[in-house]
């Protein structure tokens, strides 16, 4: 029922599609290693690994990558906490008024940043929160609440009811039940949430561009500035790009299953 011919067709189709994805990335990697300013490919022995060090210094990535990392770590930690609280409330405890509240939360997954960025900026400016890390972290957290609640609520609901009932009979309080039973049992979902949240925060450009300047630039914004200054030095620009993409790519290599299943399941986000 599954002939050799079909198998060959399958691999041909898949390989053509994969080549279409990989080719642009491949030329970019080659450019990043080229000693030539225009990024022309060269023989392996001539590859210039210093490009990464040069780009790192010229673009001021030590500072920008640190800023990005601080933001991402704080957002991920806060995100998980908010998602656990909200998901547990809506998924297990039930919430007074949830017939109204839950649709409002879900609506948030459809609201794009563009719809709120203007007042957000001018309000934060009067409060002195623009160009501060706490300000941008707060925005990331608020934007992430709908997906977090949606995600953890589904995860908690998938747990067997009997576990909750017997813990309830043992007289465990809600906080203890979340901490010592529900959260550990939902660990796979939490890990996926951590990865997705880190990726979304690290990859953000628009929010950082609007809210952070100068010393508070994130890696993505610093890369944007860098490429504007080094228009003619494509090899350095490419090296810088790979540096900024690296943290998420490393995680993607290590946890590809979680990334893909999480993004397919959470495709409704954005």
């Amino acid at each position, binding site marked *: 029922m599954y002939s050799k011919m079909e*198998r060959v*067709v399958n691999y041909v*189709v*898949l390989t053509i*599609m*994969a080549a*279409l*994805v990989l080719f*642009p*990335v491949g030329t970019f990697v080659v450019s990043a290693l080229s000693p030539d300013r225009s990024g022309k490919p060269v023989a392996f022995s001539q590859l210039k690994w210093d490009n990464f060090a040069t780009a790192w210094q010229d673009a001021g990535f030590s500072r920008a990558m640190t800023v990005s990392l601080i933001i991402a770590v704080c957002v991920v930690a806060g995100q998980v906490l*908010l*998602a656990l*609280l*909200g998901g*547990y*409330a809506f998924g297990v*405890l*039930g*919430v*007074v008024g949830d017939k109204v*509240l839950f649709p409002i*939360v*879900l609506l948030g997954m*459809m*609201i*794009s940043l*563009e*719809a*709120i*960025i*203007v*007042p*957000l*900026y001018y309000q934060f400016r009067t409060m002195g929160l623009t160009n501060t890390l706490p300000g941008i972290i707060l*925005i990331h957290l*608020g*934007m992430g*609440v709908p997906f*977090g*609640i*949606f995600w953890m609520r*589904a995860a908690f609901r998938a747990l067997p009811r009997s576990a909750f009932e017997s813990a309830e009979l043992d007289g465990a309080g*809600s906080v203890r039940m979340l901490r010592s039973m529900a959260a550990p049992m939902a660990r796979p979902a939490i890990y996926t949430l951590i990865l997705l949240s880190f*990726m979304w925060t690290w990859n953000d*450009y628009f929010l950082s561009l609007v809210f952070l300047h100068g010393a508070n630039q994130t890696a*993505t914004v610093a890369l944007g500035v860098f*490429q504007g200054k080094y228009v003619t030095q*494509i090899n350095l*620009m*490419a090296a810088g*790009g*790979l540096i*900024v993409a690296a943290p998420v*790519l490393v995680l*993607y290599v290590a946890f*590809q299953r979680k*990334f893909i299943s999480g993004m*397919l399941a959470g*495709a409704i986000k*954005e």
Partner: protein
Amino acid sequence: MPATVTGTPASARETRPAPATDVRRRSMRRRTRWIGLAFAALPLGVYAIVVLVPLAQSVQYSFYKWDGVSASTWVGFDNYVSFVTDPVLRSTLGHVLVLIGFFALLPIILGLLSAALLTRAKQPGMAVYRWIFFLPQVMTTVVIALVFKRIYAPDGPLNEALRAVGLDSLARTWLGDFTWALPALGLIGTWVTFGFCMVLFISGTSAIAPELYEAARMDGAGPVREFFAVTLPGLRGQLAIALTLTITAALRTFDLVWITTHGGPGTSTLTPAVALYKAAFQNPQVGLAAAIGVVMAALCLVIAVVITRVSERD
């Protein structure tokens, strides 16, 4: 409506057989619901401050003319009317339509084509392919923009390939060309989304009952009829997700344009999001920027609702 897309049974908990109606238990349930509200208070509070309040303010701002500094004046629907009267702003909507062709239609056609060509059987090595197809999804748009800046550069791979086959006349500065910059940007979107669509559709076809295919074969359906009679209807849910995501992505394009062309040359690649950014932060017409944001949000919502409705209709 997002819940229906993934098929989460929203009423799973309510339909559990009701426990013996015992007063003590019911009051306890009521108590846990108040505890639940206390648990949800923090996330809901942050959400309200960051999303709900500014959303309402966006609508409010959009009825004013304000430069961000001096006093604002009420202008009614003027900011919305400029979507019709201002040719530059109006052109952004046309650009979005072009981008939808590249971000949504082309990737979905490619994805369907490959899903149709592939046999619905577990393929060794599929994990590696899936990893590759999803790669553009995890890369930050800034880096993707740089990747394609290199591809489209005057002496980049695309122009060199054209020259190598003797099509020198076609070689050009793709992103600096009034006619070609927008399609060139669009193709980046195609590159970003087609792998995602493929994975979505391949996983969708593997969920279609094999009996349906057998029945179609017995009726003498060829591969083409089989595709339209079995595969396409079976992928309805996945199509809805792919369309919603890719169309809203086209509508919201910012990073890609900002890094590569800044909306230029001229205004030939200006998108609503770039127009919003310029109006909000460069030469402040804050009310107009808010109106653009509101229109974009409304369009996203309408698109999602319409697509979900159509895909669920029998």
